[in-house]
């Protein structure tokens, strides 16, 4: 357990490559793994690592985030002392392009006023279950100014991101923004650990020099004089930076060792907003294999290699294969969906056949009726 560390969850990091999935929501509230949202992963890991003071840098459209986190109770962060703090974005002058840095800057007093000596900053675009205590240990062992967490990329086509090259001793020799990351390269998971005072100074300095983006203007530029080290996370971790990555990462959960590694880590559950959905009803005609099914579903059709979110209905004779069906989706009688991602409340009417490919899944937007 770590003490003396505050957490900041940065929901403003760029997210342009997921356009379809994030058109109507911040990346942090993207549904994942049957009942979670991406923000659950950094939040839960912070809490499980002992962090009790968590600020959330909100994006402009934050209703879904606020509705999800509410008082922070489901993460044990509804507290009289410390707990969850919302750090809303400031209103900018008309036409000015905003970045996450401005938001950090205008909330620096919250950081300054917190009693902790260290800060752990995490973006909300990755899926992992890790103990941040290990990150802190690496930080002290290597005598780092900034420690960033990296993980070996699992596939070649995984969108853009920050690639980190580190020497044997863990000291980072190069940090660059790549648009095409190759398999095996160490990519940043968007998690940074540093002394709080350094964070405040770097942000202030960068903003005063016209900086906009934390990764570009702080990490790539302002921190040039700092000793940046890498903590290589060896457990499961994925960055969700494209629709394809989103799809593959969800389906990776169907390997029991991945599912267990992510969700059943001893003493470290992933928390999420609790909803009192009934257990899943497997009815006559249900035929479900190698799938993850969240509560509230009613199944009378065939489901294979798929992820069903809460409240999904699969009618008689319907077939769902290699697909991700988000909350309250309905697959009508004798309809077929293969390699499909349906967003919330999608209704696929009886008899329709939708077929995407493993390498190019079809995405169907929120509330659509097919």
């Amino acid at each position, binding site marked *: 357990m770590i003490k003396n560390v505050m957490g900041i969850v940065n929901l403003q990091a760029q997210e342009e490559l997921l356009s379809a999935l994030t058109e109507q929501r911040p990346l942090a509230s993207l549904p994942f*793994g*049957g*009942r979670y949202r991406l923000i659950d992963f950094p939040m839960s890991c912070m809490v499980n690592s002992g962090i009790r003071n968590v600020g959330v840098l909100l994006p402009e459209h934050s209703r879904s985030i606020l509705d999800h986190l509410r008082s922070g*109770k*489901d993460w044990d962060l509804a507290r009289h002392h410390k707990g969850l703090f919302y750090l809303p974005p400031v209103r900018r002058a008309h036409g000015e392009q905003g970045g996450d840095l401005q938001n950090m800057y205008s909330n620096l007093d919250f950081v300054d006023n917190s009693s902790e000596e260290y800060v752990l900053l995490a973006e909300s675009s990755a899926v992992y279950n890790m103990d941040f205590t290990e990150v802190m240990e690496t930080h002290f062992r290597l005598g780092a100014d900034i420690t960033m967490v990296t993980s070996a990329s699992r596939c070649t086509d995984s969108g853009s991101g920050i690639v980190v090259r580190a020497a044997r001793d863990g000291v980072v020799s190069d940090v660059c923004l790549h648009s095409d990351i190759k398999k095996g390269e160490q990519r940043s998971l968007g998690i940074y650990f540093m002394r709080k005072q350094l964070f405040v100074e770097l942000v202030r300095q960068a903003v005063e020099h016209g900086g906009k983006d934390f990764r570009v203007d702080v990490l790539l530029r302002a921190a040039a004089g700092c000793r940046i080290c890498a903590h290589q996370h060896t457990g499961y971790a994925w960055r969700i930076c494209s629709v394809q990555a989103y799809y593959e990462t969800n389906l990776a959960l*169907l390997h*029991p060792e991945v*599912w267990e590694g*992510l*969700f*059943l880590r001893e003493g470290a*559950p*992933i*928390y*999420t907003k*609790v909803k*009192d*959905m*009934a*257990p*899943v*009803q*497997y*009815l*006559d*005609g*249900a*035929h*479900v*294999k*190698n*799938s*993850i*099914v*969240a*509560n*509230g579903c009613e199944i009378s059709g065939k489901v294979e290699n798929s*992820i*069903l979110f809460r409240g999904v209905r699969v009618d008689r004779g319907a077939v769902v294969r290699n697909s991700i069906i988000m909350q309250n989706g309905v697959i009508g009688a004798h309809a077929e969906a293969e390699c499909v991602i349906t967003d919330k409340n999608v209704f696929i009417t009886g008899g329709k056949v939708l077929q995407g490919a493993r390498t190019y899944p079809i995405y169907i937007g929120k509330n659509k009726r097919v």
Partner: protein
Amino acid sequence: MKTTCVAMILAGGQGSRLGALTKRVAKPAVPFGGKYRIIDFPLSNCAHSGIERVGVLTQYRPFELHNYVGNGDAWDLDVRDGGVFILPPYARDKGADWYRGTADAIYQNLYFISLSDPDYVLVLSGDHIYSMDYSKMIAAHKENGAEATIAVIRVPWEEASRFGIMDADEDGRIKEFAEKPENPKSNLASMGIYLFSTDFLRRYLEADAKQKNSSHDFGKDVIPKMLADEAKLFAYPFEGYWKDVGTIESLWEANMDFLSDTPPIDVGGRWRIRSANHSMPPHYLGPRAKVRHSLVNEGSVVLGTVEHSVLSSGVRVEKGAVVTNSVLMPFAKVEAGAVVDHAIVGQGGLVESGAHFEGTDGAVRVIGDKEVYHVDGTVTEGSGVF
């Protein structure tokens, strides 16, 4: 602050007819329906009915129940002028008493009731599965100008002698009450749900407490006395699903009732049954899993076959295992190749690889919390965690 109605849930009984399942926990804390505990039903009913001040009277093995109910936040009952209050027996300046009966339990908590000066006191049991709008019962009570109202349900005539039977006139006024009568005069069974006008109840409880030979029980002593005094007792007819789950058989049957394609209670609908949840991932069905006519809750892993069964959270059914017509409580595990039929496996219970743990219709088999059923048919205390 004054409230209209305070609910008192009788949750202190041992539930000895549930055998191994209540060795460690009180009956109201026994898991039900894959996700719930029995007490979720009266607590959810209270919350939905607008009754926000609820006393839970505990006595037998209370830890797990106390821990589960907490401050009532899972049912949105953690409000300023209300809440869920755990009411165990307590010592006073002149000695201490256990709760000697259902009426005595309420009598000993008259002070708690007086704190919010309610017009009515609703007495509920912690061992019934049903969803009911108590506010309608309160409205009927007022309309009838009743002093006490007892919820009743029509049961099949041939089963009437197993229940407390009310004989009421056309207007619903109760004329007679008979506990398990040999020759029932009606088929209106008491559901163990009593609504009293507070002052009326107080009078009778104070009188009953002074009776040396009373068993201090509502059904046996207090209600008969009220009737003998020709008090205004009315029956409130309830239509819908209601099941007393006080025995192994009835608990198993009620679980099976929820496997119908049209479950008897819409637990996920508008009158949602709420429960205090662990944060668990969605369940996983493996490549060879076969699951049909079943309820499966979060955190479970099914690699074998499950037919017509209820699986609670964190259950594991290993490869080649076959589970039929059974109830697996939280964190139960059925190892590879084992067969479970017509059975209830308690919390953290284990059926060993290759074992056959089979009951029959009418003779359901049970292993209790943390118990292990071995291949040779013996049962031992295990070390399973839950």
